């Protein structure tokens, strides 16, 4: 019994962490497929909601990082987990701030759950094979330094 348990644990922890490919609608009604985005470079998925204050602070920082590294293949996707009561505010919020990154809807939180998300802000940084390099729970002031370093490392790893 102990050996079976050991085998199961070794298998689970030797596996690479990632979720399956997904297709979600963006705020303009287009379908966005993760595997297509991964062809460009590392992808940062930020799960957020219009009612989540730290999410919007993190989004501001990520937008600056995205504008800095988008030409290097970095892709930032804001995945809205707003449910039916707030989802109609997503597009006016994003466009009024002039954000140009991809924003998609995950209204039933299926993609959010598949990455083990519990509460927003929650983010994952993916390499071009779709493997999770790092996941992030919460956002505090000063996290921009760490986020930028991680993203820069992911871009450099992709070049090698």
């Amino acid at each position, binding site marked *: 019994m102990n*050996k079976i348990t*050991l*085998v199961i644990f*070794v*298998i*689970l922890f*030797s*596996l*690479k*962490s*990632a*979720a*399956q490919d997904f*297709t979600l609608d963006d705020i*303009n*009604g287009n*379908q966005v497929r993760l595997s297509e985005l991964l062809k460009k470079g590392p992808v940062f998925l930020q799960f957020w909601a219009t*009612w*989540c*204050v730290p999410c919007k602070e993190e989004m501001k920082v990520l937008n600056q990082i995205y504008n800095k590294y988008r030409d290097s293949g970095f892709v930032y996707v804001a995945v809205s987990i707003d*449910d*039916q*009561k*707030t989802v*109609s*505010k997503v*597009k*006016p*919020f*994003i*466009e*009024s*701030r*002039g954000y140009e990154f991809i924003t998609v809807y995950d*209204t*039933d*939180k299926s993609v959010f*759950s*598949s*990455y*083990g*998300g*519990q*509460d927003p802000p*929650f983010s*994952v940084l993916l390499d071009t094979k779709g493997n*999770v390099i*790092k*996941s*992030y*729970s*919460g956002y*505090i*002031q*000063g*996290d921009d*330094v*760490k986020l930028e370093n991680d993203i820069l490392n992911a871009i450099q790893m992709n070049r090698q």
Partner: protein
Amino acid sequence: MTSISNTYLTVVLLLCTVNLFSQINVKVSASNQFRFGTGKENILSGDISKKYFEELGDLRLFINDFQLGARFEYDDPIEFGKGKKGMSRRFIEFRKEAFLTRAGNFYEIFAKGLTLNSFESRPIGFNTEFDGARINYRHTFGKKNKVRVNATVLGGGMDYTDINDTSRTENYSIRAANFGISPVSLFNIGFSYLFANGKIPTGNILTEIDAEIYEANFGFNWKSLDMFISYANKVTILHPNQVYTKSEAPRGDGAYASVSFAGSKFGVNVEYKNYRFNLVTPDKRGATSPFKPLPFQNAPSCIKVYSTTLLSRFPHNVDFGDEVGFQTDVFYSPYDRLTVNLNASLSSRHYDYYDSDTTVLTRYQRIDRKYSFLPSVKNEFSPYWEFFVEAEYQLNKNMKAKLGFARKTSVLYSIVDPSSSDIIRAVTIPAEFQYQFGRIYGIKLTTEFQRAFNSLRSDEKHYNSQYTSLVLSRSPDVIVAGNFEFTDDEEDPSGKKFWANGELTYKFSSSNIITLSYGSERGGLKCSSGICRYVNPFNGFRLTLVNNFN
């Protein structure tokens, strides 16, 4: 010798299995949440001891086109809702091209939720999870003129535990389907149908119902303009019993619409709701009524979701059976440093009622009105309205400030004795200041002042509340917070006037977090999607451990 060969065999087995799994593309995702609390809850009769212990582990395994998921839950006891011990969720999902099928536990939303919106909200102990099967087909036809189709068929059971009385559990057997088509990129139309057989407890008696809901929706998307409209109609067929002796089949309906426009630096969203799923006289309303909106029907609430303490102090409990109203949200960002958010909403019941009985008995009679599709601000309609404006200004790279103003009024009208109506009015001024220094250090000061009026206070009806929170952080791993709240309300349900607690959060890694807190919390109504429960004031210790093993 035997032990050596056993060890050898185990290692070989491990290597072979890992190698096999790596070839067939196996991935895993796991998360865990542990919550523990001990202390005292303040209720009207005094202090009672309160303890909770919740362990929640989620595991997902991805094997090529398959996904297997399981949740292990151990509550001893749970803080809110009905506790579980053992495996509380399991499913298997298969995804191939346009098809997505799942067997086991799942949640689902059709359109905006007028027919079906099942979800879980642990902070209020709400859960409308399916145990059954679901098939989804989603495909885009054509290359130039794309036609998009989305269809879902599902069936299963649902056990819903009443959030305010965990001894009441309603059982439903549900069959439902949803179809949506977008023949051109400009618009899409959708239809949904749901049949439910339900067993709803009324005291010791189970009342059986059959309910059917039909829904149609239309969406329009042109450049920066988005429109959506949805209409649902529900019929509930009652099986007579000792409580409800006559066969009845009342109808109810609901409509929702939204328009949003997003331009450069400016965005606006207007929502309208008209929910009449159980438009009855006041004596026939209630959580145990078999004709109520079903627990898996959760339409948009059309009220603002606040994230700060005093602003969320007087939330609105949406009555999906009888409510009409609208909400407007405006986002304005004239330049990079300044953003402004403005929100206004108004909701009320559709009709006023009067007591037509001249004896000691009460017989409610509806007063019809022409414009019942619009909300009213008259007290007789139990209105709820609020206005909120907030401006955020980035002073420089390291400093930003927020200032807001909120006004809300909530009325729960008493027809029998209007002078005992529950009227609450509140003006709240929230402010926030953030400063970042040394690149990784941060300080955040939040303060809220509130002037409130409560008609049910026997003596002084006006009172003030003050909330202050100071947060110090060192990125990426330490957060220290102190929260203080004061009121001069002589009749606060807890009998207290001051609450203070301290919180320490430490991040072991970017997604493994422990939070410890100690002190007193004021409590109050806690809401999710317009569904509210009262949370008692709490004084004690809390520990939360969140892990993500990605």
